[in-house]
């Protein structure tokens, strides 16, 4: 009897060991980022993709499973990118993720440095998925003729206005509701935003310097105004960045007008994000000049906690109007991308997970819960996406006017300098618009040398 028991025990142990050895676990690492909290679905979608993949592996009797180790950063873009870069330069696969989600502007530098791999061959393996992506998004993933990233999401930038405050300032409901159509038709221009702000102020609906606010930090948002004033940022022929003198000067003069008319505080760059969101979503500020579609989701979460119905009723939006009547509005989009690192030991598997995370249902879940836009054509007819009035309206109002920030390694330096040495210098009164332009060009030339073209 005891012999039997011992036999069974040994057999069981051995079988267990064999089984444990049999199913190998492959760990795939991913770095993901918000920094807004609702975008946690960037991480969750990868996790769901891995769950689905494991189910398939189990079903097919495959002898390995995948485990995902994913991080989600909510501090700031700059923290996230700095940490990524420092890990990437180590070249150590143990420290480097297989999948990175980041802004498309990182493709240029990462590709140059050899941190990521081109994906054209992988993409060709899944035509049924990737032919469904909006063609414009691939442009943001291209660098030196190759595709280096898979679009993860995109968004639209717009200006938001408080319908309730405009009404209180005496505007008719018809006028307020007609703003988006007038913007699209080129009848409502940038100066009309100033007129709205002035009226809000004169009517006493908002306090001085609370009429028009903007983001306190650099960002691709500022490029929209260069486009709106008829400028260009990039010369596709030479691959160099462009500083358009007249458009840049017009932007600086526009900012000066906002401050001089007491619509915007001169210290706008010193106001924190939470304070900005609290004041706008709470109805203390009339216009949010540099809004994004993700803000609408942000305001529905803590600490702002506004209901969708409240926001939908009181807040309207439209793309950034042109400067001249009859011009085209603009909405700069900043697609996020999945990248596969050169250090990854399982590139095929990582790419498969990215492909599965790009499923229509998963991407729609992300789009709706975080205020982003569809990346696949079939999402537009997918009922949950179609049913989301906000996403549909953004697609309708802003998507036709979408433009991107140039895919140049120094584009972030461009928008950073445009803001800190231009817009802020003018706002605080340190430089006049003309001086700021001169200073800005000097800095761009010192930093970029022959990588920048100055146009009149």
């Amino acid at each position: 009897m005891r012999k039997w028991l011992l036999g069974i025990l040994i057999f069981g142990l051995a079988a267990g060991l064999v089984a444990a050895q049999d199913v190998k676990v492959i760990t795939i690492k991913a770095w993901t980022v918000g920094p807004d909290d609702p975008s946690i679905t960037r991480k969750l979608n990868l996790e769901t993709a891995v769950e689905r993949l494991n189910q398939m592996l189990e079903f097919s009797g495959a002898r390995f499973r995948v485990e995902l180790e994913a991080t989600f950063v909510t501090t700031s873009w700059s923290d996230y990118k700095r940490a990524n870069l420092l890990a990437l330069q180590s070249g150590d696969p143990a420290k480097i993720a297989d999948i990175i989600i980041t802004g498309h502007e990182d493709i240029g530098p990462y590709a140059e440095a050899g941190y990521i791999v081109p994906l054209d061959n992988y993409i060709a393996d899944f035509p049924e998925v990737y032919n469904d992506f909006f063609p414009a998004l691939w442009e943001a993933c291209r660098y030196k003729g190759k595709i280096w990233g898979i679009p993860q999401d995109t968004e639209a930038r717009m200006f938001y206005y408080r319908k309730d405050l405009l009404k209180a300032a005496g505007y008719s409901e018809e006028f307020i509701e007609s703003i988006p159509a007038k913007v699209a038709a080129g009848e409502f221009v940038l100066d009309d935003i100033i007129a709205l702000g002035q009226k809000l102020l004169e009517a006493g609906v908002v306090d001085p310097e609370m009429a028009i606010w903007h983001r306190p930090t650099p960002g691709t948002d500022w490029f929209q105004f260069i486009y709106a004033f008829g400028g260009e940022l990039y010369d596709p022929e030479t691959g160099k960045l462009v500083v358009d003198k007249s458009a840049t000067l017009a932007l600086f003069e526009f900012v000066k007008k906002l401050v001089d008319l007491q619509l915007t505080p001169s210290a706008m760059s010193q106001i924190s994000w939470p304070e900005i969101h609290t004041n706008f979503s709470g109805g203390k500020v009339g216009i949010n000049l540099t809004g994004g579609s993700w803000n609408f989701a942000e305001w529905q979460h803590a600490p702002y906690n506004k209901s969708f119905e409240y926001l939908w009723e009181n807040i309207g939006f439209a793309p950034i109007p042109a400067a001249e009547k009859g011009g085209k509005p603009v909405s700069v989009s900043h697609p996020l991308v999945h990248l596969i690192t050169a250090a990854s030991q399982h590139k095929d598997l990582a790419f498969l997970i990215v492909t599965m995370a790009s499923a229509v249902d998963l991407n729609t879940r992300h789009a709706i819960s975080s205020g982003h836009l569809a990346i696949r054509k079939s999402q537009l007819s997918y009922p949950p996406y179609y049913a989301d009035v906000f996403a549909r309206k953004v697609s309708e109002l802003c998507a036709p006017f979408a433009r991107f920030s140039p895919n140049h390694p120094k584009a972030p330096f461009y928008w950073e300098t445009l803001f800190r040495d231009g817009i802020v210098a003018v706002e605080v009164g340190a430089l006049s618009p003309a001086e700021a332009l001169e200073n800005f060009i000097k800095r761009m030339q010192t930093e970029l040398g022959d990588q920048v073209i100055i146009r009149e």
Partner: protein
Amino acid sequence: MSSGDPKRTGRAKGYLQAFLFLLPGLILILLFFLAPVIITAVMGFTNMDYRFQWNFIGLGNFFRMADDFLIPKILINTLVYTFGTLAIFNVTFGLILALLTTSISERVGLFFRALWLLPRFTPPVVYAAIWLWILSPTRNGLLNGLRVAMGLRPIAWISQFPWGVIIITNGIIGASMGMLIFTSAIKAIPRDYLWAARVDGASWFQEVRHIVLPLIRWPLMFITAYQTLSLLTSYEYILLITQGGPFHASEVWSLYAYNKAFSAYAGTYEFGYAAALATVLVLIGTVASIAYWKIFRFREMMAQPRIEVS
């Protein structure tokens, strides 16, 4: 003969023992102080960027620094920040705190000293967040809230007083270091000197002027030298509170180097140029140390103690 000389063997042994005792410290200094300086200096001769390649470009970065039109402004900011914080807070205010808290009852003095140590114990990010709230340009800020309550218009504190903001926010933390050192130095002064002075009818000011200050001369000079060097390289509170802005109004040398290397939002990652900037800062620090050593005659301080330790 030489190897057999017991005196010499003994001395060699002594040196070896001393060396072995110093070795752990020496390794730390080489690894964490000297090596980074050398690596930074070498990196300063490259144009290293996000690709992390060691492309040597000779003196390119230093020529660029000469052409960089922001440098004069940053140099002035650095001097104002370093010597302003030093003169107002780290030495003068630290000294005043030490003098006052040692002149009152020990228990009350201890309480106030503990109070002044609080900012130093507060995590920098929290400390900065509190200041951002105090200085907010809107009426939601503490100072502007008070102004609005008094019927005044809000002020953009950071734009209006960039130097004041970085000096005060750093000084409030910095003062406690001087306070502690000066307090212990004052307490080490033999009491009979003070009693004798009091018997002779000296006032509190006369005591301070003729007994205390001369006797704490060395700690005063030490704090001046030490804090100069520490202020030259510190930027974390400036980064957190003003980010060097607006328009470089509060950007100091070390922050400029940091921004060049790790500038926000993917920025520039110009590690080569940043390393060259940092190297210049190391040189400035070295020159300042030698100058202080000579001017304050620190050799004498090292030679023999001037304060009796009881």
